[in-house]
């Protein structure tokens, strides 16, 4: 042991620093989150953006092929007071790095390359066209970035990308009619200019690092003789660097102006999108009580419901924080559920007490239990520890003819531990 230590010391400072680094790095916590959406507070996931009808057009695509992710979201009317309202929001896609490129984004048929303001309680239909770039198995989420509130993530699904990245092309036609491949466009210029500035920067650092080490210069710099550290040669070299830097900047600007005479600045305007036309909510809901039983992974809610639809209806689904609790007595009533991520689909998760049809014009009290391990595995159950223990979500009712009626539900949630 003593010999080893002697050898380490004999390695000099580089050995000591390297070993210190190894020990410190070994001490850094290694747990890194994979599905970041689960670490987001449940009250945000349940009461801000209610994603529904989300589909992914393909489960497997080749490099250069496109996958379309689309669906709808409702901006919750019970948006939490502690989160900024979606006055400036941007529809995005969450991927593990640039494994896809986004070719088109639409909200209610309007191009959504800009941010926009969204209205509480309103529905929006959206779609995003993604072109596969890197082969692999990637988890793809929809995501709404809300200014000052952060990203609110929708459901995620794995998409398999096959093929070879070398084949990837991202061609676009500019307004001047030129077709360019964005994957490689301007790369040589970027590399050349970055390298040039890097060389200059390194040369500048080396010039000063070649002098006595910082530790020795520091006390002198702090004393009244600090100016004596700068020699006449230093001043000349510095002036040379300044001339080169200014000259290169001017040359670069002039060359860019000559090579690309027509340019557009990055667009920062806000888009205006009207929400989907909405008729008055036909199934009125008032939450009477709601409890969450921690060991049972079960939320029980009692609601007063008024059916103004003109036909008998049944409660088919409770949708919250991207988890879909389905009433097996009604079954899956829409095609979108078939391709929905398995881990977010509780196919027998909704139990309605005295499950029966609610007649047209009827007002009645109804209790339902949404139970599934997803409360725990999706980390929604930690809602009971939130400073704002309110839940939110959507209730899907179905008429005998299959018509779907969507209602908001929200209210206080009381935890039960036994």
């Amino acid at each position, binding site marked *: 042991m003593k010999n080893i230590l002697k050898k380490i*010391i004999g390695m000099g*400072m580089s050995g*000591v*620093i390297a*070993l*210190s680094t190894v*020990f*410190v790095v*070994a*001490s*850094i*916590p*290694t*747990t890194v*989150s*994979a*599905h970041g959406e*689960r*670490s987001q507070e449940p009250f945000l996931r349940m009461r801000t953006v209610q994603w529904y009808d989300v589909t992914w057009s393909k489960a497997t695509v080749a490099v250069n092929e496109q996958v379309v992710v689309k669906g709808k979201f409702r901006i919750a009317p019970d948006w939490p007071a502690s989160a900024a309202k979606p006055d400036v929001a941007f529809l995005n896609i969450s991927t593990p790095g640039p494994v896809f490129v986004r070719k088109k984004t639409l909200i209610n048929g309007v191009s959504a390359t800009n941010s926009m303001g969204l209205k509480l309680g309103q529905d929006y239909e959206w779609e995003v066209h993604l072109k596969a770039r890197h082969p692999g198995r990637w988890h793809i989420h929809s995501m709404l970035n809300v200014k000052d509130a952060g990203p609110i993530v929708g459901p995620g699904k794995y998409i398999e990308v096959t093929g070879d990245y070398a084949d990837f092309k991202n061609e676009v036609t500019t307004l001047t009619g030129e077709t360019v491949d964005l994957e490689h466009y301007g790369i040589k210029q970027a590399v050349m200019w970055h390298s040039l500035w890097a060389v200059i920067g390194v040369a500048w650092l080396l010039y000063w690092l070649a*002098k*006595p*080490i910082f*530790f*020795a*210069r520091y*006390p*002198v710099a702090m004393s009244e*003789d600090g100016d*004596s*550290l700068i*020699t006449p040669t230093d001043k000349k070299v510095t002036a040379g660097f300044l001339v080169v830097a200014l000259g290169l900047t001017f040359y670069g600007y002039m060359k860019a102006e000559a090579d690309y005479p027509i340019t557009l600045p990055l667009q920062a305007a806000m888009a205006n999108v009207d929400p989907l036309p909405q008729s008055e909510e036909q199934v009125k809901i008032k939450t009477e009580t709601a409890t969450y039983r*921690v*060991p*049972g*992974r*079960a939320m029980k809610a009692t609601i007063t419901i008024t059916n103004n639809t003109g036909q008998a209806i049944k409660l088919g689904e409770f949708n919250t924080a991207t988890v879909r609790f389905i009433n097996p007595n009604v079954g899956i009533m829409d095609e979108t559920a078939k391709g929905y991520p*398995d*881990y977010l689909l*509780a*196919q*027998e*998760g909704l139990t309605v007490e005295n499950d029966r049809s609610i007649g047209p014009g009827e007002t009645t009290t109804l209790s339902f239990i949404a*139970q*599934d*391990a*997803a409360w*725990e*595995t999706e*980390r929604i159950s*930690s809602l*009971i*520890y939130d400073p704002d223990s309110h839940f939110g979500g959507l209730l899907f009712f179905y008429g005998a003819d299959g018509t779907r009626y969507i209602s908001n539900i929200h209210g206080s949630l009381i*935890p039960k*531990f*036994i």
Partner: protein
Amino acid sequence: MLSRLLLLLSFTFMLADAYAHDGAEIEEDVCVMTLGNERVHFSAYQPEIEEGAEYCREIPSVDGKTIIVLDVIEKTLREIGVGLKIYSQENPENILVSVQPRRVSQGVVEAIVNFPESGRYIAEVTGRDNSKARILLHVDFTDWAAIILGILYDLARLLIVGYLLFRLYKYIKGKIIKQNIESKTF
């Protein structure tokens, strides 16, 4: 200055071994057991001791009832069926809870157990296809040997880094003297 740096480093070391169960991703949760390719999340509650506190391998008390909950993550395993058995490690014949494997459509298996005394217990999760996974529970039981070993390990690491930092300090001090600041030969 050096002592502050050492203190900071010692905290860094402690963080490396810390693990918060609440909020951890399910993929990295230490309470997840695997049955073949399928996963089951194990948790225990003692509502009469502390409401809302979720435990995994370390259960703090033998008083009152303990609610054991299994969250079956994969749908295939929910269909296959999952059972639960809890017994004393010293005496496996002493079975405290036995839930026969059954289909769990909502993925939740719940059982209540009253631990008779402090000690080590085994929670055994069984699939209907007889695949098994076990975790060791410490109920009101402190494993002093493991704690002392952990402290010794952390101390050893701290001593090594402390020594390296001491060498670094000596080196810098020596270098400054060698540079002969007073002569201003720059």
